[in-house]
Structure formats: structure tokens, C-alpha cells
């Protein structure tokens, strides 16, 4: 599960900034950050990379074996993949389903969710399965955490400039 939690210790900061940070920590703003996170993970995975642990580096997803590539060549694949491309995309449902799964003050989580049209396992179960098979993707890399932090800083500046 990809989760981002804003720092709780800001009492030492100036009053105006404390107010802005309290505003950013509100559920609606955290949900907005979650949408940003979901887009990051979806795009990075479609580019062919996974992340094994939160804060870790992104790594190319394991290559597909030849047999599976031949099978994929016969399928009606999403336009965001090719038969030989390892990017956890076949119909596109798994990555399309990544969304905010929970949010509260100062914290938001994202991940795949919901049922699939093929009637198989849920997107959550499929995500767990592919991670167990050596293709974890639902974690934020170090640079992605920085992107989320920079997005939160933008929201703070917008509030301060109002």
C-alpha cells in the first residue's frame, strides 16, 4: 500500500505557517495529494518500473517470458502496452483502478481497488499476487516521495499567498 503521512511536528513553526499546514493536513487536501500519488504510481508502472519498498529506488519490472509474449500478441491489449512490454498492463484495469483508498487528517493511502470485468480476483488481490510474484509496484520511491512533498509545499504556498 502506498501511503504518505505529513510530518506532525510543526508547533515550532510560525503561526501563519502552522495555520497553512493545518489546512494542508485537512482531509480534502490529503485526498488531493492522494490523487497525485495514484497518478505517479500508475504512470511509473506503465513506464515499466516497480518499487520494492517505500522510499526505495524504482527498478525495471521483470521481463516477460517468450511464451507469455506470444500469448499477449493474440490478446486485445490496452493501448498502453505492447506484447513484449512488462508494465503490468494487459486490459489496463489493474492500474486504472489505482485510487485513494483511505484518507484522514495528515495521511492518505492509495492502491488498486474494486472488481474486474473478467470476474477474476479483485484488483487488490491481483496487486498482492503480482507483488508476491516479484513485481511490487504499489509503493512510492524516494524521488516520488519528494514529488508528493513538493506538491504539498505548493499547496502551502498557495494558502500563504491568498
Amino acid at each position, binding site marked *: 500500500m502506498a501511503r504518505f*503521512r*505529513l510530518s506532525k511536528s510543526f508547533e515550532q513553526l510560525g503561526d501563519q505557517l502552522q495555520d497553512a499546514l493545518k489546512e494542508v493536513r485537512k482531509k480534502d487536501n490529503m485526498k488531493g495529494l492522494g490523487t497525485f500519488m495514484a497518478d505517479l504510481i500508475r504512470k511509473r508502472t506503465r513506464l515499466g518500473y516497480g518499487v520494492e519498498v517505500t522510499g526505495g529506488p*524504482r527498478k525495471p519490472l521483470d521481463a516477460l517470458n517468450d511464451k507469455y509474449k506470444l500469448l499477449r500478441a493474440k490478446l486485445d491489449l490496452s493501448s498502453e502496452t505492447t506484447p513484449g512490454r512488462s508494465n503490468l498492463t494487459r486490459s489496463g484495469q489493474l492500474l486504472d483502478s489505482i485510487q485513494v483508498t483511505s484518507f484522514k487528517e495528515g495521511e492518505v493511502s492509495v492502491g488498486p481497488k474494486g472488481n474486474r470485468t473478467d470476474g477474476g480476483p479483485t484488483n487488490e488481490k491481483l496487486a498482492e499476487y503480482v507483488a508476491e510474484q516479484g513485481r511490487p509496484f504499489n509503493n512510492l520511491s524516494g524521488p*516520488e516521495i519528494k514529488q508528493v512533498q513538493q506538491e504539498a509545499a505548493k499547496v502551502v504556498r498557495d494558502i500563504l499567498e491568498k
Partner: protein
Amino acid sequence: MADKKYVQKEIKIPKAYSRQERMAIGQEIVDYIRARTADGRDKNGSRFPGYSKAYINSLAFKVAGKSKGEVNLKLSGDMLAVLDVLSTNPGKIKIGFDPGAPEAGRAEGNIRGTYGQASGSSSKRRDFLGIEPKALEAILDRYPLDDRAASRERAQETLDIVEGTEEDE
């Protein structure tokens, strides 16, 4: 490993600034570079050269939701996210990348116009690592040397925003 001389840049500023002020000014410089690059402009304020046909037709381009008219050096967003203030000393601020980071290699490719090849083309260069004199002046104006209290307050606020939005450990 990227070459330090391409992926790190030293920016000169007045020597009178304290360490805290230098860190804050550096932070504003990297934030400015991110925003200017997102707007499609290089270190001199000129538009980046357009993307190649091969890149525009690639799956990566499509997956990243890019459009051919928007040259902003952003695919995953990681490269510009890790651009950072590396160090400061009286009179100077060093910004850029750790040469060993994977993003540094991408940065070097853009800066030199090499993109994974041995040699680069100046016509393909997208050098974003630097700041125009007027833009630097505008940032330094927020840290007035003749009003140290205001300068220190600005520095504190700039650094506090970064601290306040960090991830909770």
C-alpha cells in the same frame, strides 16, 4: 556515473548571507528552475528544442500523457524532483545532482544533448541547470541585505515550508 561538471552548478551570491539564508535562497532557486523547466524554458529563458519524432511516437511518451508541444523534461517527474541544494559556502550555492543517482544520468543527457549516446548535439541540448541573472536578482530581492530581519524571516519561512511538508517518519 554522471559527470559532476555537467550535473552540478555553482551560483554566486553576495558573501554577506548567513548559512540559513543561503540554504533558503538555494531552495528558491531550485523551485524556480523546476517551475521554469515545467514552462518549457532553459537556463537562459529560451524555449527547449522540440522532441524527436521517434520519442513522440514512443509508448513511453503516450503512457506519460505528454503532448508534443509541451517540452518540459518531465516523464516520471523524478529528475526534477531530486534536483537539490547540494552545499553552500559564503558567496556561493551549489545546486544539482549526486553524480551516482540515476536521475543525474538523465539530467546529463538533457544538459549535454547526449541522451544515452557517447556524444551530444548542441541542437538537442536542453540545459535547465542554471538561473538567469534577472531571475536570481528577483530571488535575492526577497532577502534584502539592508533589512536583515526581513531576510532572516524570509529564510526561516522558506525552510519551514520544506520542513513542515516532509513525510512523517
